[in-house]
C-alpha cells in the first residue's frame, strides 16, 4: 500500500518538476533550456556509474536476502547480532517505506531496538553505491566517512535502545 503511495509521490514530483520547467520556459526560455542542457550533460556523466551500481545491486540482492537478515538478527543473536546488524545495514538495499514494515515485523519477532538502529544507521554505507561516492568525493573521503559511520552506528544502537522501550 505504502509502496504504491510512494511511487505516486515520485511520479507527482517528476511531473511537478516538468511543470516548473514549462512555467520557467514560458517566461524565460533560454534559462530553462540552459538548465535542461546542464541536466543532460550531468546525466551523461553519471549513466556509466549508474550501470556499475545496477550490476553490483543485482549481486547483493542475489546473495543477501531479507530472510537471511531475519535469521541472523533474531532474539538470541547476542554480540554476533551487532555485527550482523552492521553488515545487513550495509548490504541490504531498499527504500525506507519497504524496510520499515520488514523491520517492524522483525521487532515483533524479538529483534532488539539497538540492532534495528544499528541496521538503519549503516544504510549510508552502500557497497553498490560506493563507486559513485568515490567518483564525486574521492577514495580517502569514502573510506574515512564509512569508518565513522560504522563506528558511530554502535554508539547509535546503545543510545537509541537506552531511550526507547526495548532495552539492549
Amino acid at each position, binding site marked *: 500500500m505504502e509502496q504504491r503511495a510512494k511511487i505516486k509521490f515520485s511520479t507527482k514530483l*517528476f511531473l511537478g518538476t516538468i511543470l516548473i520547467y514549462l512555467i520557467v520556459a514560458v517566461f524565460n526560455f533560454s534559462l530553462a533550456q540552459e538548465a535542461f542542457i546542464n541536466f543532460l550533460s550531468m546525466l551523461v556523466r553519471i549513466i556509466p556509474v549508474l550501470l556499475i551500481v545496477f550490476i553490483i545491486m543485482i549481486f547483493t540482492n542475489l546473495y543477501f536476502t531479507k530472510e537471511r537478515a531475519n535469521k541472523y538478527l533474531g532474539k538470541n543473536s547476542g554480540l554476533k547480532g551487532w555485527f550482523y546488524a552492521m553488515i545487513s545495514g550495509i548490504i541490504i538495499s531498499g527504500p525506507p517505506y519497504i524496510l*520499515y514494515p520488514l523491520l517492524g515485523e522483525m521487532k515483533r519477532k524479538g529483534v532488539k531496538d539497538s540492532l534495528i538502529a544499528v541496521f538503519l544507521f549503516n544504510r549510508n554505507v552502500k557497497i553498490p553505491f560506493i563507486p559513485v561516492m568515490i567518483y564525486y568525493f574521492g577514495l580517502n573521503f569514502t573510506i574515512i566517512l564509512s569508518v565513522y559511520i560504522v563506528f558511530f552506528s554502535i554508539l547509535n544502537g546503545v543510545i537509541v535502545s537506552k531511550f526507547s522501550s526495548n532495552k539492549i
Partner: protein
Amino acid sequence: MNKEINLKKAIFKSVDTMKGSLPIMFSILLLINLFNLFGKDYYSKIFSGNLISDSFIGAIAGSFSFGIPITSYIVGGELLKEGISLIAITAFIMTWTTVGVAMLPLESKYLGKRFAITRNLVNFIFSIIIAVLTVVTLRIF
C-alpha cells in the same frame, strides 16, 4: 533452475529499486540545475565555511530530503562543484539516509513513536559530528 529464479528475482528487485528512485533522482537533479542558475551567487552567503553552521544547514536540508543514498551522493557531488563546503555536503549526505522527517509517521507506525523520535534526533546530532570529524580527518591525511 533455483539459481535462475533467484537471479531473475534479484534483477527484478534491482530494476524495481532503480525504477522507483529514478523519477525522484531526475526531479531533484532537474531542480538543482534550475536553481543553480538563480542561486549560485547566494550559496557563498548561506554557506560561510564555518564548520558548525555549514554542517547544521546541510544536516537540516538532508533531513527533509529522502531517497536512496546514491541520489544524495550525486546531488551532493554536484553541489560541491558549485562551491558548497564539503562539511555541509557530508552532513547533507548523512541526514539524507539516517534522518527522515517525511518518513517519521511511517517509522513511528512500524517501529514505535519513541524509537522513531529518539533515533532521528540522535542521528541528526551524529550526522553533524561525523561531518565535522570526516572533514577534519581528511585535512590531516
